[in-house]
């Protein structure tokens, strides 16, 4: 068969799949999408459609979603849906090494969505950006937690090693006063490591500075944009508000999407804050 008719055949299967998907019959939809892929292996949309259906199953097949989205991205990099579904699947798969991957995918999906919002200010992108913002923050937190666990493990090992050296010296000394000197050092060492955030509870103070907080969601900002009066909000929040009412939330002056400007330095500052305090990404 000529390649073009194979493509047509794939499109016919895709349409059938879409109809089953709309009817919430995800199992049949998956079968049709699979047949479509057999006819046309280079159409990246077929893979994301199958991923969407797999995510909707009563018991979602995250493994399959991961494979399909990766294939889809290989064919087409600028692929919002594939990055979005991939990040969702990676979060659910809870693979010990994939936190960075899901964070990267979620961020890429968010970036593509922002691009889309800039082209069509109040289009589909505006309704997706909220979900994507939350997903990025969630992935950020999980990634940070993983790094934090590793850091604590390392630092905990160091603490144990140093304490063991001090204890060994203490056991070797002759007189009582020297022994108590070493005991003091062991105690001091423990308190120093506790201040560094290990040894039971997190000893560091958990406080989010006001400049990092979006006044609409009260979350830390990921992608702050500034209004005409210099106040910044999370992009997703202010877009959501402007859908309701084209007013500045603070002054009630007329405000539209076109008046918003990204606040790049604040974005960097928030990023830096979250790198140090990943727990704050999703509190």
């Amino acid at each position, binding site marked *: 068969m000529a390649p073009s008719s194979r493509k047509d055949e794939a499109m016919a299967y895709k349409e059938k799949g879409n109809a089953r998907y709309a009817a919430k019959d995800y199992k049949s939809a998956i079968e049709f999408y699979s047949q479509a892929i057999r006819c046309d292996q280079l159409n990246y949309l077929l893979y994301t459609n199958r991923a969407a259906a797999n995510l909707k199953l009563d018991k979602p097949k995250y493994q399959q979603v991961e494979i399909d989205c990766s294939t889809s991205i290989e064919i087409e990099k600028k692929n919002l849906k594939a990055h979005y579904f991939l990040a969702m699947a990676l979060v659910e798969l809870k693979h010990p090494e994939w936190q960075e991957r899901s964070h990267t995918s979620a961020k890429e999906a968010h970036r593509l969505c922002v691009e889309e919002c800039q082209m069509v200010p109040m289009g589909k992108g505006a309704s997706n950006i*909220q979900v994507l913002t939350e997903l990025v923050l969630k992935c950020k937190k999980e990634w940070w937690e993983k790094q934090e666990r590793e850091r604590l493990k390392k630092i905990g090992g160091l603490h144990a090693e140093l304490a063991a050296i001090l204890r060994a010296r203490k056991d070797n000394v002759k007189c009582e006063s020297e022994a108590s000197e070493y005991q003091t050092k062991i105690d001091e060492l423990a308190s120093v490591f506790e201040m560094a955030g290990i040894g039971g509870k997190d000893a560091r103070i958990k406080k989010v500075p006001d400049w990092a907080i979006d*006044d*609409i*969601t*009260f*979350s830390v900002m990921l992608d702050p944009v500034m209004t005409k009066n210099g106040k910044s909000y999370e992009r997703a*929040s202010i877009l*959501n*508000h402007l859908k*309701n*009412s084209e*007013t500045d*939330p*603070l002054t*009630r002056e007329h405000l539209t999407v076109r008046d918003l400007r990204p606040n790049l330095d604040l974005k960097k500052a928030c990023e830096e804050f979250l790198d140090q305090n990943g727990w704050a990404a999703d*509190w």
Partner: protein
Amino acid sequence: MATTLATKRLSKELAKITDIMPDGLTLVSATDFTSWTIDLTVLDANPLYLNQTFRLKFLFSDKYPMEPPEVVFVSLHEPPRPIPMHPHIYSNGIICLDLLGQNGWSPVQNVQSICVSLQSMLTGNSKNERPEGDTAFVATNRQRPRDINFYYHDDKV
């Protein structure tokens, strides 16, 4: 329960007001993220509200904070919680304040800022009266407060 924007934001507000609440405000109950009650007293010595405590009831929809919460005064015998006398507060507790309407609302407002606005609305009042047409309104109104299109005739009060 799915964590919607509303529950996320309300849980953060709750954490903050459980920590510190401005003078004259006491959180009475906030068992879920649909309805909270808060007791309010007026801070200055306005003779109209001297030694009185009022109870506010907040109802949140899942569109909060994109849409305003429904806020009314509720009356109670024990402990005594009357409806404050004010030309913008009906005797059934419904409050006529532009901030609480669809057009006056802004998502940067929050439970605490609403309470503080109501406090100052009472502080600034010297008229011991109900809104015009109170009896008729209370007898006939079946609309929910947020659906009523108040005519904000006098912003000075």
